[in-house]
């Protein structure tokens, strides 16, 4: 346990704020963020500390001598994507911090560098999305034709995702647009070439967007007693599933109304 001077508390708070922000923004579970904060605090001689993490924000307070010298921060987290490399390195930094290998200043510098991350590998991500979608289609029982169409529409969806990345309602928009793009490409391809199964293509191509993982995590969070987080993730999963379904159905219905066959 390291003895803390009152002046150092601000440095500690800053590091904890950066770590929890990075972890939460990049898809770490709430209990894991709480766990990390508690671990860092335990390595200093605080009298009390308390952390409450929900998917949309972090509440944290710490004090050296009871309620009279309380230090608090609240961090609202708006954008949430998944980047497990960042979660992992934030975790490593926190572990080094508690082991005393890393000083607070060094940790702050590293975390701030992580916050302004470099450019993303767009081409690589597009290809990865496409191939992932293609192999999911194969897994569901599709053929080579279904594989290639799913791969193409998956790549297009990922390109659309780059376009909408900055929007506030990113998850909703990309689910809706992704569903529409996938359904349109799948319908067009199966009609033009008169082969393949458009349902399999759609299922595979939207697989990377689907909220199955969010649903599972929601149930797991609720089982652990993180009820707020469980409900929040469940709602997120529901919204994504609804907008995907609406996107796909809009295209299929329009196709029917235009007199197209094949449904």
């Amino acid at each position: 346990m390291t003895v803390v001077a009152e002046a150092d508390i601000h440095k500690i708070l800053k590091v904890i704020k950066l770590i929890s922000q990075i972890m939460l923004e990049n898809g770490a579970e709430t209990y894991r963020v709480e766990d990390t904060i508690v671990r860092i605090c335990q390595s200093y001689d605080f009298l009390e500390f308390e952390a409450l993490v929900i998917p949309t924000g972090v509440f944290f307070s710490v004090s050296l001598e009871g309620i009279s010298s309380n230090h608090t921060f609240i961090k609202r987290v708006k954008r949430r994507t998944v980047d497990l490399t960042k979660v992992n390195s934030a975790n490593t930094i926190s572990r080094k911090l508690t082991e005393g290998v890393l000083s607070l200043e060094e940790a702050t510098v590293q975390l701030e560098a992580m916050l302004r991350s470099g450019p993303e590998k767009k081409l690589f991500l597009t290809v990865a999305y496409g191939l992932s979608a293609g192999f999911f289609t194969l897994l569901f029982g599709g053929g080579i034709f279904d594989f290639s169409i799913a791969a193409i529409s998956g790549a297009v969806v990922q390109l659309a995702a780059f376009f909408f990345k900055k929007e506030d309602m990113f998850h909703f928009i990309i689910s809706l647009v992704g569903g529409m793009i996938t359904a349109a490409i799948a319908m067009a391809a199966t009609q033009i070439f008169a082969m393949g199964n458009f349902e399999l293509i759609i299922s595979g191509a939207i697989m990377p967007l689907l909220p199955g993982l969010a649903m599972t995590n929601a149930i797991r969070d609720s089982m652990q007693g993180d009820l707020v987080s469980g409900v929040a993730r469940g709602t997120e999963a529901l919204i994504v599933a609804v907008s995907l379904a609406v996107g796909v159905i809009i295209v299929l219905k329009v196709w029917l109304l235009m007199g197209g066959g094949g449904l």
Partner: protein
Amino acid sequence: MAQSVLYAFMAVLFFSFLFNVPKRSVLVTATIAGIGYMFFSISQGLAGADFTGYFVGTFVMAVLSEVAARIMKMATTTFITIAVIPLVPGLGLFETMQFVVQNEYTAAVQTGTHAMLAAGTIAMAIAVNTLIMKFLLHMTGKNKQDR
């Protein structure tokens, strides 16, 4: 079946790039997914019930993730959250909503219940593994690794 295991492996491999999984754990995660999917299809055939397959498959994945996490000194969740993707009932949830927006409520309830139960089974398999792991660590008295 060997084919579908390979497909699950490849799908998870490319999927893990989307979630930017740490580079040194990508292949491990995909392998865990493949092995788990194999157990999923085997046990589903043997028991005849869907949920047995989900439980056994996820449980195998969770155990392997735990082992990999100890060896590679990374959090277990890094492996299991990605590896479980082929089993996770995202498609079921999507089909449910598809039925709902088409006014087919009976079919929606049917697929929806199945999807919820599958998600619950997967979550339970992960939780059971965590419990067993905690118990084992408690027994051996080495309770310092993070989850």
